[in-house]
């Protein structure tokens, strides 16, 4: 075993220097008691840095071109907003990448909010509330139903995701009643689909669903 004369103690392993005083060790080395493990560096950060640089460059160039061609309108603002939306979505996906179902549900909320904002900024033609949000809801519910079958997700988790989508559907329905939504069909369809799916869960898995709600809501 190696020996540190300064600290007056034996050191296991094959290292050159004492881990306490960093002095050179004497004697024969032995097998290392712990493996060397590389830290959890951000391995793919280079890709994201390049992407960030590219998107920012596009933003700067479009502002510059827009500045040189003032008669073409303020279109560069939309380019910048688009880049912002792209990054918001990318960050969300990266953050929740280990759970594909959470990506679907979170993306539904994020994209819905962004659609409403874009609609508002481009003259409030109501396309977001009339079509985009309810169609997104239906798409996400369909995707969740199919993928949860494929990946064999416990129906309890599926219930929670459906309840979250239900929150959005309720908000949409309230907007419909308040007269914010002009075209009723997509919203009503989406609400129906949500209710049918929930009812199906309750009919086929009722006891498990109640138990799950009991667990999730215990105080």
């Amino acid at each position, binding site marked *: 075993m190696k020996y540190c004369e300064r600290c007056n*103690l034996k050191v296991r392993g094959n290292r050159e220097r004492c881990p306490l005083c960093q002095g050179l060790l004497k004697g024969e080395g032995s097998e290392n008691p*712990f493996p060397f493990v590389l830290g959890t560096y951000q391995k793919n950060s280079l890709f994201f840095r390049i992407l960030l640089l590219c998107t920012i460059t596009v933003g700067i160039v479009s502002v510059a071109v827009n500045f040189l061609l003032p008669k073409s309108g303020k279109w560069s603002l939309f380019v910048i907003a688009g880049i912002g939306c792209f990054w918001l979505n990318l960050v969300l996906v990266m953050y929740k990448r280990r*759970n594909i179902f959470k990506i679907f549900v979170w993306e539904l909320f994020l994209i819905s909010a962004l659609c409403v904002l874009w609609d508002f900024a481009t003259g409030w033609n109501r396309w977001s509330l009339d079509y985009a949000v309810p169609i997104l809801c239906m798409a996400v519910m369909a995707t969740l139903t199919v993928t949860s079958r494929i990946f064999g997700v416990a129906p309890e988790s599926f219930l929670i995701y459906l309840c979250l989508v239900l929150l959005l559907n309720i908000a949409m329905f309230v907007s419909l009643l308040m007269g914010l939504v002009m075209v009723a069909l997509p919203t009503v369809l989406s609400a129906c689909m949500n209710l049918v799916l929930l009812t199906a869960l309750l009919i086929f898995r009722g006891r498990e669903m109640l138990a799950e709600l009991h*667990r*999730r809501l215990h105080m």
Partner: protein
Amino acid sequence: MKIKQTQWVKLDKAARIFPCISSKRDPNVFRFACELMDPVEPDFLQKAVDQTLEEFPLWGSVLKRGLFWYFLESSSLKPKVQPETKVPCAPIYDRDVRKLLFEVTYYQNRINLEVYHVLTDGTGALQFFRSLVTCYLYLRYQDIEEIPNLGYDASRFEQAADSFQKYYGKQCSQKPPKAPKAYQLRGGKNPDNRFSVIEGTVPLDQMLFCCKEKKVSLTVMLASILMNAIGMEMSHKDKERPVVLSVPINLRHYFPSESARNFFSLMNVRYDFSSENGNVEEILGPLKEQFKKGLSEDEMIYRVNQFMTILQNPITRITILPVKDFFMRLGYQVVSKTETADISNLGPIDLPEKAASHVKMFDVFASKDGLQLCLCSFKNVLTMTFTSSLRNTNIQKNFFRTLAGMGLPVTIAAVPFSQEEL
């Protein structure tokens, strides 16, 4: 149609805080390691883990988030034994991935068990680990007639009991005074949220002999040496604040309980370097007094109640989880300002005689943002392991040099940070 019955339990009162305060810096993961005479055989280890899990059904749980609290839900996930490829005490719980709250890994002669503190405390995990090691040795060598009863005969209900709930409500006469701010260790942190792990071993009999000479217990002795090691690094200005060591207490010693979950509490011992010069001899006396007082029945009852009064509060109960997370983290930051470092003694570990002959030593350590010393002993080997998030290892150096200065043969080992160190 087959209806699957999902079992679930509420978190015990001490565990409730862990998911809220866990971070990359301190994921609240601790590790038990056992060094055998021969290299580990993964196949036998896998079988041993599977068998042990049957005895400890709660360990097959996953942690889930409710609207108000986290809870443990039974799962059919099977643990997979793997070679050690992660840094020690890396985060185990990931709220986006459904997985078990413990991991079993191996490296050469070592079996490692890493546990998320939500599942159980050190004593609870040690029951599991002893069973695991004994079972492995039984399968591997076949010279042990049968897997012996390890003196742990709790029923599954006793194992899963939340003992805080049971002993809540006993009246205690006084409330300890509010703790002042303690001296805080400062300095650069390790990159990548890694911990520097330095493990030291000394012969137990020689160490106990030193303790007997001074008429103190092993914990008091090592706590004094640690305090002194911290004191040596303090500037004159630093000494305005006391050094406070936080010591976890196994409440099973004071309240009858066979719980395999968390049942521990924390006690603080302090020493003020401003009024006294402080060397190990001088620190011993006051510390011995504080340990004696801190372990009195009154203080124990107070500690059990302490957890409960906050958690039973109606306002706490109806607060939704994200808000709770925030306030718990805030509260934890305030509390952590009242302590300098941790010292935790798991005590002697025993195995059945035949199994013990295949084992060299045990080791235990825990993640900590700051500095923590964990102790355990097996046969005649006392293992003292420091984990620290700080780059500077002078306190560890002072500590082990003090031991060496007492004439003890110290052997240390450290987890390497870079390839060059090897």
